């Protein structure tokens, strides 16, 4: 940025152009910029990117011409105090018409693709590129986390949206409290969520990977920590994820094991680490179960807290804020208000041993 | 500086401003009232829009059809309409220096204002006892807000006209000061016109909702 300090006026236009180019080149490489709007990984974002880039190039041309003219005039028409009065020009109708018409024409070049893109992005495709029906997902905003429901699969999950590569996702969105905005820059633009009406958005992921997203409408105290991940995976992997959710939900019957004979009949449960068993007990005893369901499928329809089915295998916790390590998870359940002041999960007195047991238990929920 | 102010001030009270030049053939104060009315149009347009956006959106009653008393409001509307005519007559009296005419019609105008405000107080009281509190539903909140602000304008206008009536009785509105009344009259016409919109939009059009 040295040019900004030295002789700003002379180098600005070229410098800006160079900076623009640099950012586009770097922005196009997803490494280091996983939330970039400039490296689309889905069709919706690609459409947006195309019209945006068109606008940027026009803007760059106009920028160079107009700032160039300004700079030229500034250097060319320097005067001294005792110079004679310059020619008194009051205007020129011809020139003024020209510089009204030309920008209007340039705008037309921007306006046409804009309207085309508006209509193309507004229409939710009836069929995915892979020939299937789009996958329906209900997105529900909460202060300050995201709930995702797959009505066709019966799955409820939170803060980590799993989508198959190549299949269009049809998002139907609302909120249970204040406005939020669902934004996953590499796949699509933002869409606000409202408490009293459903908004729609769609995209088709083109490459597998984990893509961060964020709430983009100010929603109160922890707006800054209302993040999420979109995990795009090959269809087979996605199916495996779905199957895992189903299986998990069946084996985690909430009823505690009552008698030893029944327990013996289930050797898998018996083989469980005592720490995990302790954690499972604590999950109910410490009232975790009051707000959180462990069943991604077939659990209660409405829960106050995020669904924890598969929490053990999620990449992030606390709505995308921390990596899901044992240490972080322990810290989070022991000190939620320290990590994220104001969340509904108040502090519970959990000894280190209890917290570790809970972590061990939650870790089993793959 | 203060001394200068004081000196100039003495001139100020006695000086004759009649010669003061205005760029447009309209007195500053009259122009200002027109500008103010223009701004007020946006105020009421927004309130009326809000009422219309929420018309029929209330989740529970009472609804307009349950409680509106059209005959009463029609009477109020008529009174307000007439008062606009009365104030024109009063202004004519003021401009011609016809003291009797001025006092007669201005008193009638003020009485109309008082009647209308009274009608509205009665109406609100009546509605309240039928279970329509301010926060009962969207209809009640938007209705009371809109008509309440209109009512406040009526009260303000009545106070203004009443003050002028007091001045007129004391003989303080000679023809060359008739502008004082003209401004109040302009404002009064505006308040009247707003009601002419509110009456059909809020009352007549909502009778079935």
């Amino acid at each position, binding site marked *: 940025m040295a040019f900004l300090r030295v002789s700003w006026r002379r180098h600005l236009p070229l410098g800006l152009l160079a900076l623009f180019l640099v950012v586009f080149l770097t922005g196009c490489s997803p490494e280091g910029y996983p939330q970039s709007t400039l490296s689309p990984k889905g069709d919706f974002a690609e459409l947006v990117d195309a019209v945006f880039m068109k606008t940027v190039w026009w803007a760059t041309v106009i920028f160079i011409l107009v700032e160039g003219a*300004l700079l030229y005039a500034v250097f060319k028409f320097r005067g001294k105090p005792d110079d004679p009065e310059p020619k008194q020009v009051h205007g020129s109708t011809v020139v003024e018409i020209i510089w009204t018409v030309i920008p209007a024409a340039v705008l037309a070049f921007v306006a046409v693709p804009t309207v085309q893109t508006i209509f193309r992005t507004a229409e939710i495709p009836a069929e995915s590129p892979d020939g299937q029906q789009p996958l329906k997902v209900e997105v529900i905003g909460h202060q300050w986390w995201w709930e995702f429901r797959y009505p066709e699969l019966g799955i409820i999950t939170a803060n980590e949206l799993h989508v198959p590569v190549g299949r269009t996702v049809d998002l139907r969105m609302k909120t249970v409290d204040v*406005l939020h905005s669902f934004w996953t820059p590499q796949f699509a633009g933002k869409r606000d969520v409202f408490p009293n009406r459903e908004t729609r958005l769609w995209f088709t992921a083109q490459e597998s990977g984990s893509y961060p997203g964020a709430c983009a409408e100010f929603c109160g105290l922890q707006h800054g920590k209302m993040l999420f991940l979109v995990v795009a995976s090959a269809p087979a992997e996605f199916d495996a994820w779905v199957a895992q959710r189903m299986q998990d939900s069946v084996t985690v019957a909430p009823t505690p094991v009552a008698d030893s004979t029944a327990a013996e009949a289930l050797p898998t449960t018996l083989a469980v680490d005592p720490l995990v068993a302790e954690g499972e007990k604590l999950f109910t005893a410490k009232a975790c179960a009051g707000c959180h369901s462990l069943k991604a499928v077939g659990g209660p329809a409405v829960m106050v807290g995020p669904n924890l089915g598969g929490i053990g295998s999620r990449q992030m916790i606390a709505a995308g804020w921390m990596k899901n390590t044992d240490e972080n998870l322990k810290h989070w359940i022991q000190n939620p208000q320290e990590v994220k002041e104001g969340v509904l999960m108040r502090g519970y007195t959990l000894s280190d041993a209890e917290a570790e047991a809970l972590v061990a238990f939650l870790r089993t929920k793959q | 500086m203060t001394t*200068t102010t004081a000196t100039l001030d003495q001139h100020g009270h006695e000086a004759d401003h009649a010669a003061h030049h205005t760029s447009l053939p309209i007195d500053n104060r009259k122009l200002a009232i027109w500008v103010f009315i223009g701004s007020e149009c946006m105020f009421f347009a927004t309130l009326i829009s809000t009422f219309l956006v929420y018309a029929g959106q209330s989740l529970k009653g009472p609804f307009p059809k349950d409680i509106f008393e059209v005959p009463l409001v029609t009477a109020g509307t008529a009174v307000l309409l007439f008062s606009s005519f009365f104030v024109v007559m009063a202004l004519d009296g003021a401009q011609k220096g016809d003291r009797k005419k001025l006092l007669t019609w201005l008193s009638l105008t003020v009485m109309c204002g008082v009647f209308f405000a009274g009608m509205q107080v009665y109406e609100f009281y009546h509605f309240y006892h039928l279970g329509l509190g301010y926060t009962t539903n969207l209809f009640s909140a938007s209705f009371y807000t809109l008509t309440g602000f209109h009512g406040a304008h009526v009260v303000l206008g009545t106070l203004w006209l009443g003050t002028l009536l007091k001045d007129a009785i004391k003989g303080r509105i000679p023809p060359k000061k008739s502008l004082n009344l003209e401004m109040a009259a302009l404002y009064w016409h505006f308040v009247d016109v707003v009601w002419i919109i509110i009456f059909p939009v809020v009352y007549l059009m909502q009778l079935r909702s």
Partner: protein
Amino acid sequence: MATTVLEPTRTASLARRSVIVDWLTTVDHKKIGIMYGAWAFIFFIIGGIEALIIRTQLARPEATLVSPDFYNQLFTMHGTTMIFLAVMPLSAMFFNFFVPLLIGARDVAFPRLNAMSLWVFVLGGLFLNASFLFGTAPNGGWFGYAPLSGRQYSPGPHMDFWVLGLQILGIASLAAGVNFFTTILNMRARGMTLMRMPMFVWTTLITQVLVLLSFPVITVALILLMADRLFGSGFFVTAMGGDPMLWQHLFWVFGHPEVYILILPAFGIISEILPVFSRKPLFGYSAMVFSSAFIAFLGFGVWSHHMFSTGMGPLADSFFSLATMLIAIPTGVKIFNWIGTIWGGSLQFKTPLYFALGFIAMFIMGGLSGVMHAVAPADLQQTDTYFVVAHFHYVLFGGSILALTAGAYYWWPKMFGKMLSERLGKLHFWTTMIGFNLTFFPMHFAGLLGMPRRVYTYPSGLGFDVYNMMATVGAFFLAGSILVFIWNVIVTWRSGERAPADPWNGATLEWTIPSPPPMWNFTDEPVVAGKDPVWTLKREAGTRTLPEPVAGDGRGIHMPGPSWWPLVVSIGILSFFVGFMFDKPWAFPFGPVTIVGFLLTTFGTFKWAYEAPDAHATNH
């Protein structure tokens, strides 16, 4: 007051008191203008300090300098302050001081109403900022989106301060709107037809139209929100059938014209400065007038471009996209005409010209990123990101503030009779430019790389870190440039060169009278025969400097006297609104403080009405 202040002699005490009384009761548009400027500058500094705390918090990822709640208070108050308490009143300073001078009038149409506008603004601004003393500053964003701004999600007095404070400030703006609209239409010197008015007067006039038509809308919106918060109605409560979208529409029907309220006066200032320092008339005067009017007109038809992400549907999106793009045409005309003005001129590189040229350079960039937002699909990526933050700081700081600074350097000699230092002025300019671009240019990248706005912190690893650090460094540099300005004022105040009546070879009427002007402005009411009347005068006299005018003693000129009632009414208005906050325990929605305020306002208004009337406003 005299009893509590110990003074060496009684006369000194009296003199001291009368200076205070003089300023509290003045109806002189110039003193009112200076007070507007002084208070606005104080609020500007407060808003700037808020910005510095914000930038310090965001300098590094995952920082914990401030709590999330305090951060939300900071950015809400930063936006509210800069818009309503800094840029608008700084413009009002120039309206007040210079519109009467530019049109050759001795005062505004309603001098006491003008004083009331000032005091309502000052008290409203103090009220809003007083919320910090209780630790309950507004925290729901300057846009106060429902339902977050409602009772359920924003309990406590935070947003009450905002709802009531903005209503108070709205009264000040509306009163000033009526006043300046009337003044400009009706108080022009003989011969000054509309199409001979200086451009700053034109943009002021158009700004007042925008104020008069848009402020009632936000007033109603605030009343509805206040009813929801304080009385329990459900205008924006979905459980009662209310619709948060109504708030957004009402807010932006006001909010977008507000953008032009902030920038049009800046356009006017630039259009005054460029001709003087190019020594060449404004290029395409009529086009400048009509483009300003067209911008204002279009400004009322584009509000929903703030709402593309709400999913209004392709037809509405297309309409608002295209309407927004249209604004680029008259705005482009302005920029080209400014370049046309300096083209072929004899540029005199004084500080005002530096800032004016800086304004054009920066405003072009803000304008171009604005067109990018008009592209609705692109806006879906950009809205509520730092790209937007960069955009509107390029138009509001790079635009409005640079132009207001240019105006300050240009008109300072006239206002205070002292020249500001050119050396420090140029230092101020370069530090501003470096600091400004270092602060806001990187925000474009942060936004495009996915950084949302209004977040109190961000995780590392998303690539925002370096841009945020640059912006923070730039912000402190920018703060330093403001200190250079303050230093310039202090130094020249003490020992600066005395300003002549016409230091810049000006074209407009204010340069024909002494610096600072006498209370009555013009000893002889001027008569105008064309645009740039003072240039014509000098050309006819064959000189570049007219003889230094003499103020005289103003004998025979009558001016309106001072009055306490504007201040009394302002206090009444403040009390009326404040009452709604503190009287809540009462069963009735309002209580004694509100009633006292109402009575005080009514009483003050009556006393005002029966006081010796405004000199210009009556013919008795």
